[in-house]
């Protein structure tokens, strides 16, 4: 036991003589600050680039007052076996769609939303949502949501509507 005591005492004294407490603080501090800054740079930039078109989310995607549904006129696919981005099984997403912008209250930005209808089955009947913001009369057909957008699909039977995020709106 005595051998251990003397060995450790010797090593501790040696260490104390060869290093300073400030030196330890300096290197430890350098490590903490440097370590925090260096890996953050590229990661933070990558995250910022990715987040450019990714909105901060809040709210229930199966509820009509969810922000992406600002111009919907139809049944929400999330209540029909699909989601806000996907069609329910047995239906086909129309490649032809009407597009508008919605304001996201969480991050305060406007996003371009594509309302792709899901087609091929009769009306879903669940979660009817009629908000119509930005809806225009049929003489502006590209901005009218009263028409069935089941165009370019094998069947023209309307089932439900998705709200696919296309990008961030351009603001001057």
């Amino acid at each position, binding site marked *: 036991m005595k051998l251990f005591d003397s060995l450790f005492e010797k090593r501790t004294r040696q260490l104390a003589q060869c290093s300073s407490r400030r030196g330890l603080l300096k290197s430890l501090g350098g490590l903490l600050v440097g370590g925090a800054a260096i890996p953050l740079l590229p990661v933070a930039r990558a995250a910022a680039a990715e987040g450019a078109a990714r909105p901060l989310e809040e709210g229930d995607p199966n509820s009509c007052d969810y922000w992406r549904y600002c111009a919907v006129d139809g049944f929400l696919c999330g209540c029909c076996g699909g989601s806000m981005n996907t069609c329910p099984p047995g239906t086909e997403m129309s*490649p*032809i*769609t*009407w*597009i*508008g*912008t919605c304001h996201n209250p969480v991050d305060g930005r406007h996003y*371009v939303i*594509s309302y792709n209808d899901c087609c091929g089955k009769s009306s879903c009947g669940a979660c009817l949502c009629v908000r119509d913001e930005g809806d225009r009369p049929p003489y*502006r057909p*590209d901005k009218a949501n009263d028409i069935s957008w089941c*165009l*370019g699909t094998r069947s023209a039977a309307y089932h439900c509507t998705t709200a696919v995020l*296309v*990008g961030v*709106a*351009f603001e*001057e």
Partner: protein
Amino acid sequence: MRPLFFTLGLMLAGTAATADDDVRRAHYNYQMFCQGCHTPDGSGAGDVPRLKGQVGVFLNSQAGQEFLVRVPGAATSALDNEQLAELLNWIVREFAGASIPANWRPYSGREVGALRKQPLKEVIRYRGQILADIARARH
């Protein structure tokens, strides 16, 4: 000398930011007014004409260059003349690919403003005629 370089650098950065804004605005206008039917990559769907790799063919004749402005979707769009010209030029540069003629002259707001006053009432037959004329001139 150094402040001069600094000023030049700032000026260049300013120009680049404006050009970048123009591209972003044109892309946004494409999303808002065209993409719903012509699809995000210009492939078209069903009866909607394909822009990708095709739209530049029209620029081989004066009637074709005018046609792209006079089609109802362009001529009667809610965009002003400058932004419509910017959008049409963006569509050509983005989607025409190899179909763009070497001597193509980009649209100006003034040119677009004059042409959109004569929107086409009949499109499909006239379109076929323009493409046939271009094909004949090539052979």
